[in-house]
């Protein structure tokens, strides 16, 4: 049990260390949050940008109003 408690404490101390490293690492880059996916190049087709949204909205509206 002594070793068990030791392991727990060591593991958690390691985690404290990891958190400090993480905080330091994150502070290196400007404090922007993780970029929302929609602004990355790749996903620009996936998550529609403003103009696509407008286009879709218009298309849906016309489809609905077509009668």
């Amino acid at each position: 049990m002594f070793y068990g408690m030791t392991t727990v404490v060591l593991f958690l101390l390691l985690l404290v260390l990891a958190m400090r490293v993480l905080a330091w690492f994150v502070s290196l880059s400007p404090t922007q949050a993780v970029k929302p996916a929609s602004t990355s190049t790749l996903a620009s087709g996936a998550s529609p940008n403003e103009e696509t949204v407008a286009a879709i909205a218009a298309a849906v509206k016309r489809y609905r109003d077509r009668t």
Partner: protein
Amino acid sequence: MEKLLLLWSSSGLAQAEMGQVVMIAVCLLLLYLAINKGFEPLLLLPIGFGGVLANIPGAGLASPVLENAVHFGSAALIDQLNLLAGADNLSGKALLHLLEGLAPADRLLAESYAHAAGFSDGMLYQFYSVAIGSGIAPLVIFMGVGAMTDFGPLLANPKTLILGAAAQFGIFATVLGAVGLSALGLMDFSLADAAAIGIIGGADGPTAIYVSSILAPDLLGAIAVAAYSYMALVPLIQPPIMRALTTVDERKIVMSQLRDVSRREKVLFPIILLVLVALLLPDAAPLLGMFCLGNLMRESGVVDRLSDTAQNALINITTIFLGLSVGAKLVADKFLDVNTLGILALGIVAFSIGTAAGILMAKCLNLFSKQKVNPLIGSAGVSAVPMAARVSNKLGLEADPQNFLLMHAMGPNVAGVIGSAVAAGVMIALVGA
């Protein structure tokens, strides 16, 4: 008339044993506490209800098919089972014990006889097998808890993780105590039993259920009831200890505002925790893995519909069946035992030591650090989220009506969840091996 007799003999009253009646009363008490006193009702209501169902005389809802066949089977069926077991005229537990020891092929044959005679696994036994026997339900709940947890306060002040570590001291001290008392002949717990009981001190329901389903399934009912009851009693158990171990000045310590935590940190934290667990503590991987998955679903922001479901429909469904399944273990021959008193006693000892260790560690940290920590938040390290943090906040407000500790106490509070899951993994590695 014969038929009325048949109905009467199949009625509960005719078959009731004292133990069952007592257990039903105990479970009604649990329902009372859950409903009228607000004792962790989300779990204790289904647990208490399941316990009543499990103890219905003659219904066998918590028993597997063979047990039902042995208890309620006709003479012809019992003869057939005796033949299969290579026994002669045995019945009751003796026969059951033999049957359970048969090779799988013969056991399946015995079960097929029982099925043919109209017996089946009881409803609660089925719930137990699926929800707890497989280990799945506590893990799914842990995923939901992960999806509900905000690690912001912990990330803003990593030091508070140490308080969550210290509070796990209660677990290990209790295991040692239980083993010691058993060695002295005062109690009768194996090392595996003791480890499962100690986890009560982790103040974390799913962890306690998960560990005891692996290490001590017979004690699961008592352990779960103790864990949830003491979690509900945190506002009664902790304050005296907290007041005894701190001075008024310490309780007045004002902690500095928590720094901002970026989304990137929050997203990376569960991944880092997962990798550390993967590399160093594989036995804690199921619990902490599902916890980290839930938290990553929450923080990543790209799977909100999964995160919502994990926090609502899925955790609620699982909670209902987990509660009923725990209730299945509240049967007289396992619960009405002097060991249950031992479990209750050891459980509160574990809680108290954990509380004290958290506070003392906070005071200890203050010796070495300029940024003083209010020791009241140390007790939150036992987890019991978010009750223990609220207790810290309450005592802080008593000392200084402007000293809001809630957010500071959330750090050790969620650290306590990680801490006890880690302790659970260590226990399983040490004891299960």
